[in-house]
Every structure is written in C-alpha cells, then in structure tokens.
C-alpha cells in the first residue's frame, strides 16, 4: 500500500538520531573538521546510542521480526538525521562500525559467530568494540584490466596479500580491515575474494598505513591508503559469503548506495533549512531577503529537491527490505543514489548562493557542505557507472558491467573491450 508513515520503532530511532545530531554533532562540526577527527567523547557518546546495531539482521536492536525486516528503511531514516547534523561527522562517527555490516553480508555462519561479536561488543578482555574498515578502492583505474590490482596469492593454509588500497575510510585506525583482493588474475571480476585482516597496520606483519588523503571535503573522516606486502591471511579469514559471494557483494553495494543517498538527503536538508532561516533574518532593501521572489522561488526549488530525493530513497529502501535484490531493485538503488547526489549538490550550491558572501566563508557551515557533498557522492560509486547500470536495466539488455551475476560496480569484459 502506498504509505509514507514511519512505524513507531522507526520514529524512535529518528528522534534519537535527530536529538544527537542537534546537541552533539552540529555544535562541533567545525572543530572536528579542523582536528580531522571527531573528539573521543563524541565517538563514545555516539557508540553508547547503539544505533550501529541496526546494521545487523539479527540484533537485539530489533524488538521483533517485522522491525528487522524493515531495517534498511530504518537505517536510511537514521543516516539522514545524523547527516543533517553534519555529513562529515556522520560518516566519521559510523566509520569504526563500517565493517560490521560488510562482515554480516559476506561471512558464513562460522565466520559470523567468530568475527562479529568483537566488532559489535568487543573482545572479552577489552573496553569496547573493535574498529573496522573496508579496503575496496584502488588508485589503478578500473578500466585497465578486469579485477583488483591487489593480489591474494594462494599459499598453504591461506593467502599472501600484496598491493595498495586507496580511499580507505578509517585507514590505520581499524582493528579489523576487510580487503578485496584478486585471487585469480585471469578470471577478472569472477576471480576475487574478500579477506578479514585482523590487527592494526604496523602491528600486523605485511600491512602498513600509507598516506592519509587530503580531500576536498569530509575532512572529519580519515581516508587513506593501506599497503600490503605479502601479508598472510589464513584460509578461515577469507569470507565465504554463504557460498554466493557475488550476491553478497551486491547487497553490500546496495547498502553503500542507499546509506550514501540518505546522507546526501540529510546534507541537502541541512543546507536548505540553514538558508531558509538565514534569508529570513538577513534584510536588504527594506525587507527580508527571502521575500524577494527569486530567493523565495529558489528556496521552494530546494525543498522540492530534498523531498523528491528522500521519497525515491525510501522507495528503494522499501524494495530492498521487501526483496529480492534483483536487477530492478539494484537499478532503483542506483537511481536513488544518483538522484540524491544531484539534489544535494544543487541544494548545497544554492545555499551558498543564497547566503551571498557569507556563504563562502567558514564562519558558516554551508561552504563545508558544498565540499562534503562532492566527496560523499564519490564514496557511493561514480555516477557514470550508475547511469550505465540503470540504462541497461531500463533497456532490458544484457549487462555490460555485470560479470557472472556479480555486482555492477565492477566493469565487465565488454566494457573493458570498449575502453581498451
């Protein structure tokens, strides 16, 4: 039934997140940006909320099976509220828990029981949960060849990882890093695996931190490189994805897109509300600036951008919750991501514009959000890949960017042929 009403448990999660965003995130957004990290007490306060438990299908966070069944939608509601406080802080606060959902999707039962509890609750002898990271992207352009450039060379009882991962959120700060690496270079996108590498870089043989990236935005988040030099990973730490690694990676990427879209919606709402308030207080030519038609119309367009992006995101999340995650559902996730990216960029840009000179200086948050949104949109996959996937699904033609039923973020053989 067509309905836009969050359930009670969802409303509670939203209210909790909204309150935290207003009281514990927004006041600190500049300080944390300048420090390049959230303050430890901020992280502790966030962890104490227990929101990250929403990432796990079997979690005490859910009162019943129905709540668990709609968790993607609930997650999107929460991520919008947190990003409304500040997108950079929202990403940074969730980052230590960023591997949890990936492990949950990609692990089999034995690995689930072994690897998840320390990530969720912490090891028996420590103060808090382990921090996670996901090492997926590489500097090597994906168009050059099929597969990852980071290799996982089979050894006795395990694999030796060698290569360089870039754009890793929480690089160097994680106790457990999921690494996507190539086992069989001849099998292209059919030949990779996902490895749970435990231990911090520098304290783990064969893994060290490279440089931290200086980025256009999202400065609060640590994004950097990890270098692997014959780093041994035992066989039992290669995630077995319940036998269907391709489908598991597809679910992982769908979540990345939807969470990314939710953060963009939160960011765009923050920019809109800030500009709405500012332009009513700021006076020029004898009246509030908002009372000039060009400004009022821009504000109306910004609100429409925010809401349209949100409803499309909700639809994608509802479809993912309902299942199955087929091609149409994946296309909807890509649509939600692409639409939210555009809406956020335009809303943030309008917000800077509406504040005039003040929009450009760092006394006001809108310029930060205009920088943040650019980085956020790349974190959930490049728009050209979204476009290609959506268009293929719409045309009903065999995918050029799917390989053997695997996730669409990875260019397939036909695309390789075109690019080379």
């Amino acid at each position, binding site marked *: 039934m*067509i309905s836009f009403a969050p359930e009670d448990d969802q409303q509670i999660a939203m209210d909790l997140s909204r309150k935290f965003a207003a009281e514990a995130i927004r006041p600190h957004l500049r300080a944390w940006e300048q420090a390049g990290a959230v303050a430890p007490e901020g992280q502790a306060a966030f962890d104490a909320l227990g929101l990250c438990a929403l990432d796990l299908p079997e979690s005490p966070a859910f009162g019943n099976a129905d709540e668990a069944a*709609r968790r993607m939608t609930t997650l999107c509601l929460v991520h919008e509220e947190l990003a409304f406080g500040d997108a950079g802080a929202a990403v940074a606060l969730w980052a230590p828990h960023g591997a949890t959902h990936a492990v949950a999707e990609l692990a089999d039962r034995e690995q689930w029981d072994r690897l998840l509890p320390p990530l969720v609750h912490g090891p028996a002898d420590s103060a808090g949960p382990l921090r996670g990271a996901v090492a997926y992207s590489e500097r090597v352009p994906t168009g050059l060849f099929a597969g990852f450039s980071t290799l996982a060379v089979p050894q006795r009882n395990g694999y030796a990882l060698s290569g360089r991962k870039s754009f890793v959120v929480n690089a160097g700060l994680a106790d457990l890093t999921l690494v996507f690496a190539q086992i069989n270079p001849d099998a292209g996108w059919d030949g990779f695996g996902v490895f749970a590498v435990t231990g911090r870089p520098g304290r783990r043989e064969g893994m060290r931190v490279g440089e931290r990236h200086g980025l256009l935005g999202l400065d609060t988040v640590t994004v950097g490189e990890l270098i692997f030099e014959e780093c041994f990973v035992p066989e039992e730490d290669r995630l077995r994805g319940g036998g269907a690694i391709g489908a598991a990676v597809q679910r992982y990427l769908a979540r990345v897109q939807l969470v990314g879209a939710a953060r963009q919606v939160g960011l765009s709402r923050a920019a809109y509300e800030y500009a709405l308030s500012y332009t*009513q207080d700021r006076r020029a030519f004898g009246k509030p600036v908002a009372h000039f038609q060009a400004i009022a*119309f821009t504000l109306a367009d910004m609100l429409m951008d925010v809401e349209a992006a949100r409803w*499309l995101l909700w639809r994608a*999340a509802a479809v993912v919750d309902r299942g199955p995650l087929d091609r149409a559902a994946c296309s909807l996730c890509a649509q939600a991501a*692409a639409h939210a990216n555009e809406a956020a960029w335009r809303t943030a840009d309008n917000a800077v514009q509406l504040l005039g000179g003040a929009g450009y200086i760092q006394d006001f948050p809108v310029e930060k959000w205009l920088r943040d949104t650019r980085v956020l949109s790349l974190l959930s996959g490049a728009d050209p890949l979204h*476009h290609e996937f959506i268009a293929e699904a719409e*045309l009903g033609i065999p995918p*050029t960017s799917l390989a053997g039923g695997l996730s669409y973020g990875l260019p397939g053989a036909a695309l390789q042929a075109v690019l080379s």
Partner: protein
Amino acid sequence: MIDFELTQPQQLVKDFLQRLATTVIRPGSLAWDRDHKVPDEIIEKLADLRGGVSMGEVPAEYGGEGGGIGETRDKKGTSQKNRFAVLGAEELAWGDAGLLLNLPGPGLGAPPVHLLGTPEQKQRFFAVFDKPGLHWGAYGLTEPGAGSDVSGIRTSCKKDGKDWILNGRKCYITNGGRADWVVIFATVDPAQGRAGQRAFVVEKGTPGFSVGKIEEKMGLRASETAELVLDDVRVPEDNLLGGEARYQGKEGFVGAMQTFDSSRPMVAALGLGIARAAYEYARDFVRDNYLLTRPLPRYAQLAGMLADDARSLQAARLMIWRAAWMADEGIPNAKEASMSKAYAARVAMKVCRDAVQLMGAHGLLKENFVEKWYRDIKVFDIFEGTGQIQRIVISRRILREAPVF
C-alpha cells in the same frame, strides 16, 4: 508503514486502464490531435468502459459513484480515493491526456458545486449526468485579463429583481462550448477584490451566453478549449451557488481555490503519464535501433539521458503519491500538492524534450508520438496554476511571514 507497493485492486485498475489505453486510446490518438476532435462514439465507448473513472466527481449521495474507482477504502477504512485517482490519471494520460479531458462528467465544475452549492442545487446540477447521452460541466474563471491573478476578474454580476445580470468574457474553458452548465465566477465590484466575487451556474442555451472561438492550441488538441461570451445574461438567483448568505466573507474566492489541493496532484499525474509514455517510446526506439550496431557504452551520453529520465520520473511519481497519500489521510497538503505539480511539470518537460532528442530526426515526425507529446506537455507547467504560482504557494508556506511580491 513506509511502503510503495500497489494493493491488488490498485494493480487491477492500473492493468485495466493500461489495456484500455493500448487497445482503444492509442490507436486513435494521432488522428484526434490532427483533426482537433474526438468522435462522439469513442467518447461514449470510453465512458462505458472506463469503470467509473469520471472527470470530476459526482458525489455518491447525488447519484454518482462517489470517490474514484473500485475499492477505495483500505482495510482500516482510510480512503484510498486520491491514490486511486493519481494512479488512474497516469495510466489514462499515458494513453492520451487530451482524450481524458473529453470524458463526460462535471469536470472542474464539480468542486465548486460540491463545496458551495445548497443540497437543492447539487441535486439539480448533478442530475444532468444521469441522463442518457454525453453531458459535461465546466469551470469558467480565467479571463483574457485575469489568469494567475484571480482577484482581477472583471465579469460583472448585478442584481436585478430575482435575477442576476452577467456581462463579460471567459477564456481557456475546457469543454466550455458543449457543457450543459458552466460555473462562472463574476464580481459585484472589482474594488472589493475577492470579497466581491460570486459563483454562478450558467446553463447552456441561456440567452446572451454564447461560445466565442474554439482555441487552436500547441498541444492537447484532442481537447476542446473555448472562449465564452456573456452579454447581459440573465441568471436566476437560484443559480447563485450557495445563495447570498454564502458570500458574507470571501467564500467565492475560497471556493475557487480549495479545489486545487486534490486536483493539483491529479494534473501532475496526467503530465507524468505523458512523460512516461514519451520516455518509454524513445527508450524502446534506442533499444531496437541503435544497439544493433554498437554496444551501449559507445552511447554513454544517451545512457546518461535515459538514466536521468528514469530516476526523475520515479521521483516525480513519488512526490505525487506523497500529496495524494496526505489527502487520503486527511493531512493538510496544500504545500505538497503544489510541489507535486511544480516538480512533475518540470521533470515532464525535460523528459519529453529528451525523448525527441533521443530519436533524432525521427522525433520530429508527426507519425511518431513523441512529437505530439512534446507539444502536449508544455501546458502542464501553465494550467491549474503556473509553475511560478506553485512556487508562490510553496514559499508562502515555508516562510514565517507571507511575502508580498
């Protein structure tokens, strides 16, 4: 709950209307545009087949089918009327939006009669739709000198004994030339602004009430749009909607405006239907022609256009569904109704433009539907409140104080 699946009755209605559009409507669509007319037998056939989708709602207590089509209350008893209406509107407009405006019924004349009329008046005016043959109602507000600025109407009404004398000119009236009656908005004194406005039902054949010209339009040519002339038209006081007691404040104006919260999402849905039709037509053309010689990555920009249009249509649909859901739930939705129209109209324009572009020269040929839809869609950012007026409505609701522009 947050959910967007159609109920089974909704899916059945959608499928039924889609079949109707494909088998009965589309085959005649280009000819009606070319000839500027829909034959009566087609209108009669559709009026029988459409399963209760009427243009303008005749309330159940006055002989109509009440709200919308099929099962309109869900299990909790909440109305689904508006959601059904936008779903139905999208499918029928996918067929031919101009045709839809030809369907018999009170049209936009229904809401003012419903909201302002006395029980006797409602009985009298809605009764005509029970009679055999094709009958229409119409809504006469716009004038050559007053479109967006409704308070600027100059058609005058002057009490004369037990009658009123009306003088003036109305334009852009859908079905105005053949309606059994038209709701005409007139003013006792322009200086009083909205407080001076009155709503009358003027019946066809009343002396002095005549059709001026039938407009030649860019699009929606299957729909007849008329100019109406009122030359000392004598209207009995029984045809003043609601009687004089109704107009102590500014009821007339309020009556005119109140209809838009339900009608704007429906009009937006009509535009969405046209745009979706154009998008699908062009997409299928790309699939069946361009991909024979090169794979899609060699048409990266076309893929980008298709992807942008697909997601924009989805987003526009959801804006409309949101406004309709709020109306069904009884949540005040003036802002969302205006947003849905403003947003959908802009999206639809872009999609229709892209559809012509995607087909290249073929998109310009009259034998291809996208040429017609490109012409049809422009009016959707203009009638039922221009995009600019929608943005005034929206900004009045988001700002703390209403701006004076």
